[in-house]
Each structure stands twice: as structure tokens, then as C-alpha cells.
């Protein structure tokens, strides 16, 4: 299907961005889930390629990585699944994984295959600004955007990061790792404003968001909301039967974000 650029996912309204770990519980279910996510109103999807030691993840997504790898998922099998998925969905898709998954596969080969299967970008939580060029240059050469992250501890680094950011800026809402939180206390609005003062690029907020109210609140302060653990939790609970539950959840979240 016709592919939409990352920035255009934010053009109509605030964007709702769900995350899913590929292969949890299996790739067939992942494919069905992503199709349903688009139907439920998702504007962009983050596809997690599992890693054995995901240091930025809390227990929920760690569990998903483990289930997927135990089930025999590999980077190549994920490329095949996404290639097929691309014939069914048109919203932008980005891979979220760790540096070694890309580096060890071979930088050129990874970027070539990622582009060929129809994704638009990459998020690598263990690649900060200082190490970005190593990944962003080959990504760009293949027409992929490397999404930059900013955190509550970034302070004076935000302007520098924003200047060279591509696609969208992933604003990490809280200290710690991924996972659901009862409240988000960081002044995310100030972070977003600082990005915008340097670069007119969409900013989406992630980490800790699990309810439509939180999602609407975060989207209200930025250009979108990213939700991972709350969705992965449904995979954990319902396995192959999670598709319908995830559809309902994504719909409630997307509706709230689009109204923000």
C-alpha cells in the first residue's frame, strides 16, 4: 500500500502511536494486531525487534522480548512478516530495537532490508546523540529516519538533539524504564517547547502512559502519545486471542488522543 511519511502521521490531528513486540506470542498474531491497530485509529506503529537484554525496558516488555525469542523469532523472520504487513497497512511503521540487533546484523544489510520491507524509521534507545551518526548516516542513505529521544534529565542537551532530529522526537516522560505509571510529574510541556524552539518537528510523549486520560493529557502538551507496556500487557494476558482486546484498547486511546 502507499506509504505515509513519519511527519504526515501528525498532520491531521494528534497522533496515537502504539508499540508491539514482534513475535509475542507469534508473528502471525503480530501481523493481525498491527492491521487492527490501523483500523482502530493508530497513526504510526512501533514494531519492537526483540533483544535478549533490553536495558531500557521494564518487566512487561522484557517479558515480551523473552517470549518472542523463546518462540524462535529472528530479525529475518520479522522482515518477512513486515513485508507482508506492508501490503495491508499504509500508516508509517518504525522499528524499535537495540544497537546490537542492527550492528550485529550488519549496518548496511539491516538498513537495506528494513527499507525493502516498508518501514520508515528506527528507534534505538541505547544510541544517544553522541553515537547517533554511526547509525543515522547509513539509515539516511537508505531513506530511513533515526528517531531521537530526549529525557527529563536531558536539560541543556535538548536543543542540540532537536537540531539534527528527524521524523519525530520521542520525549521520554519519566525517569526509569518503560512501564505503566499512575502519574507523570515531569514538565513535558517545557521539554516539547524547547524542541520546538530549535526545530519544527513533531514531538510524541512515551513511557508510563496507560489510560485514555493520560494519553489525551500528554497529546495535549505535544503532538502525540506513545503506548507500549499497556498493550504488551494484553499480549501477555491473552496471547493469540489478544487481537480483539488490543483493538478495543487502541480505539479508546486513539479516540482520546485525536480529540485532544
Amino acid at each position, binding site marked *: 500500500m502507499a506509504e505515509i511519511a513519519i511527519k504526515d502521521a501528525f498532520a491531521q490531528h494528534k497522533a496515537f502511536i502504539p508499540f508491539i513486540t514482534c513475535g509475542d506470542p507469534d508473528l502471525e498474531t503480530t501481523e493481525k494486531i498491527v492491521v487492527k491497530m490501523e483500523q482502530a485509529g493508530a497513526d504510526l506503529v512501533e514494531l519492537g525487534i526483540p533483544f535478549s537484554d533490553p536495558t531500557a525496558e521494564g518487566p512487561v516488555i522484557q517479558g515480551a522480548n523473552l517470549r518472542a525469542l523463546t518462540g524462535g523469532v529472528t530479525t529475518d523472520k520479522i522482515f518477512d512478516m513486515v513485508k507482508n504487513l506492508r501490503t495491508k497497512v499504509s500508516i508509517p511503521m518504525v522499528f524499535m530495537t537495540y544497537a546490537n540487533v542492527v550492528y550485529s546484523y550488519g549496518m548496511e544489510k539491516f538498513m537495506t532490508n528494513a527499507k525493502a520491507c516498508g518501514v520508515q524509521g528506527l528507534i534505538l*534507545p541505547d544510541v544517544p546523540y553522541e553515537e547517533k551518526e554511526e547509525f543515522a548516516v547509513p539509515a539516511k542513505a537508505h531513506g530511513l529516519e533515526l528517531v531521537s529521544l530526549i529525557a527529563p*534529565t536531558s536539560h541543556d542537551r535538548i536543543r542540540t538533539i532537536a537540531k539534527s532530529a528527524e521524523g519525530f522526537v520521542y520525549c521520554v516522560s519519566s525517569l526509569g524504564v518503560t512501564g505503566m505509571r499512575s502519574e507523570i510529574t515531569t514538565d513535558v510541556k517545557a521539554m516539547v517547547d524547547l524542541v520546538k524552539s530549535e526545530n519544527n518537528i513533531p514531538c510524541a510523549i512515551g513511557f508510563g502512559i496507560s489510560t485514555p486520560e493520560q494519553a489525551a493529557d500528554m497529546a495535549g502538551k505535544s503532538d502525540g502519545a506513545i503506548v507500549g507496556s499497556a498493550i504488551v500487557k494484553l499480549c501477555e494476558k491473552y496471547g493469540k486471542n489478544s487481537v480483539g482486546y488490543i483493538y478495543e484498547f487502541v480505539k479508546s486511546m486513539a479516540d482520546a488522543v485525536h480529540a485532544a
Partner: protein
Amino acid sequence: MSENNSSTSKGRFGIHGGQYIPETLMNAVIELEDAYNHYKDDPEFNRELTDLYNNYANRPSLLYYAENMTKDLGGAKIYLKREDLNHTGAHKINNCLGQGLLAKKMGKTRLIAETGAGQHGVATATVAALLGMECDVYMGVKDMERQALNVYRMRLLGAQVHGVESGTGTLKDAVSETMREWTRRINDTHYCLGSCMGPHPFPTIVRDFQAVISREIKQQMLEKEGRLPDVVMACVGGGSNAIGSFYHFIDDKSVRLIGCEAAGRGTDTFETAATIATGRLGIFHGMKSYFCQDEYGQIAPVYSISAGLDYPGIGPEHAMLHDSGRAEYVAITDDEAVDAFEYLSKTEGIIPAIESAHAVAYAKKLAPTLPKDQIIVITVSGRGDKDVAAIARYRGEDLHD
């Protein structure tokens, strides 16, 4: 392999090193680097650290001529650098006193650390007690079982010990969990990393604090023999006692530097932790270096009888010394290490840590092949009391701590 490391990257050892960590931690490592650059040349800081080394940690450690072992092996003359005689029984205290003092100067009130065998956890807990800081130690649940006595020792020293169940429940998982904890609480907390690994500036800081080992060896050897040694060898997991033993000899090209990795059940099996022998280039735990991994970059479960060497990577400076050929890396199996553990105990009356026994094992092979006028220094990184029960079980005895 050609490398295109970022022009903005810091802390490189050849192509290795760097800072591959979440953005949340970047200002923390920058703050640490700034503080370290300030204090490393500060006379007051160095005076305090030397005072702690000499009057608290029992430095300088002895350089002991192992006459029985030398005669028995019938080749090169063997000296043992006795890091096992340090307070807390291992080289780990050198680094912990340095980092603890640095953290205190930075205004931090809490130390967190990973531990494998428990030696680094004990050393961190000790320094936290001494300096009046809070301490949380993360340890794989499998290692907590293997090293139950050290777990209690840390608690006795006032530290909280957290069992890590994720992954393989060993050292790599303890490192991952400590990194996660650091992202949760940064302001008052210093991550007292235990080996010459992780993101810049840790490999440099840990190496500098451990370099006291080679500084002393050099001076003591000149006093005893009036010359440099021909070989310096040490065991390597992450590699901190080895890099400390090598550092002041790197420019002395006549000195062979040998790191002894843990082969576990053999480098031709999956039950190994020999990174140089079986790993390949990768990015993990904040650094580019060699790692045991599968074809898709998934970090491999590793195995060694020694909890302290049971790590799938190696510090970036070792990776560089391997690339350049300046240091050699050899793999020692569990069986060889256990034999050496017993050999040193019976021959010299010194029970080495099972980690250190890997270096003793290679010396047993190498010494007989060298002429009698050559000198080998083996760093005995720690004492083996912690391992006695496990080795007894390895030999079929029904003995528990």
C-alpha cells in the same frame, strides 16, 4: 571490519568503547567525566585515596616469590601479586575506594553496584559503610545461590541485596538491572561499576584506579630483581584486575601481557565465557567490544564455574589490546582452573579465588616452557575462601556454606 564510529563519540579504545546508553543517563556520565577529570589530578583527592589504600585496604599488596611453585614447574621464576591480601580479599576494593571517594566529592549519597561472585558487591558495601553512604547491590539469583556467604556479608555491611531473576540470573543481568536502577534514581546515586567496561568514562576510571597494581609490581620488581618481568598474567572477565596489572607495562614492549579467560567446559562448547576466543564485535552494556552472541546479535548465555568471569563481554581496552596484538588472551577450562586452585593451595599454602586460579592454570602451562632466567608475575586477584564449598562440591563432596 571497517568502522564508522560517530565523530562525536567519546571514550574510544581503537574502534571499541563509546557511550551506547539511554539518553536518560547521558548527563550522569557527562557529570561523572567532568568530576573525574577534575579530581584525578587534585592533590587532596589523591592524598585521601592513597591514605585509604595504605591505611585501610592494606596496600601496597605483596609481590611474593613463589619458590615452591617455581621449583616444581622447573622453568621461569614465578612471582605472585597478592591482591588477595587486600581488605575484603580482592582487587575490587581499589576501584571501590576510588569511585566511592569520587562519588562523595560529587555530593552523591548512595552507591549502587552489580556483582557476580559477590566480591565487587562486598567491596562496594564496605566502602559505603566506611563513607557513610547508602548501598544497593544487584546480583543474579543464580549467583546468590553460588555465593550465599557473600550475600550475607553484604547485608552485614549494611547494603540491600536485590536478586535479579531476568535473563540467565548472572552477572550480565545484574549489570542490566543496575543500569535500569540508575535511570530510576540519578540525582543522589552513583553507579559504582565493578569492571573496566560499560559506557565512557567507566572503562578509563576503573582502569586508572586498578592501575595501582601494575605501578606497584613495577616498583617491587625493580627492587627485588632490578629489572622488568618478562610476563604479566591475570584472569579476565570484564578485565579489571588484568587491565590494572597490564597498564604500566603497555609501553614496555618486552613484557608479555596475557589475559586468561574462562573457557568453562571448553571453547568448542556453548558452556563457555571466553569472549575473545568465541565472541565477535558488538555493542552492549554501553560499549562497543567483543561479545558472545548469536548470528542475530542476541547475547549468548555464558557459563563458567567462576561467577566473577561469567560475563559475555570484555572491556574495550582489552579488545583494543587484542586487536593490536599487544596482549594475548588464552582460555582456561573449569577443570584446569580447579586443578590450579588445588595446586596453589598445596604448593604455596595460598588458596586463590577460582577466578585467579585461571591465571595460575596458564602459568602452570607456560612456566615450564620458559628458561629459568625469565620472570612471570601472576596477579592473584582474590582469595579463595568464598569458593571452597563450591570446589568441594565440584570434587563430589557433600558440603554447603
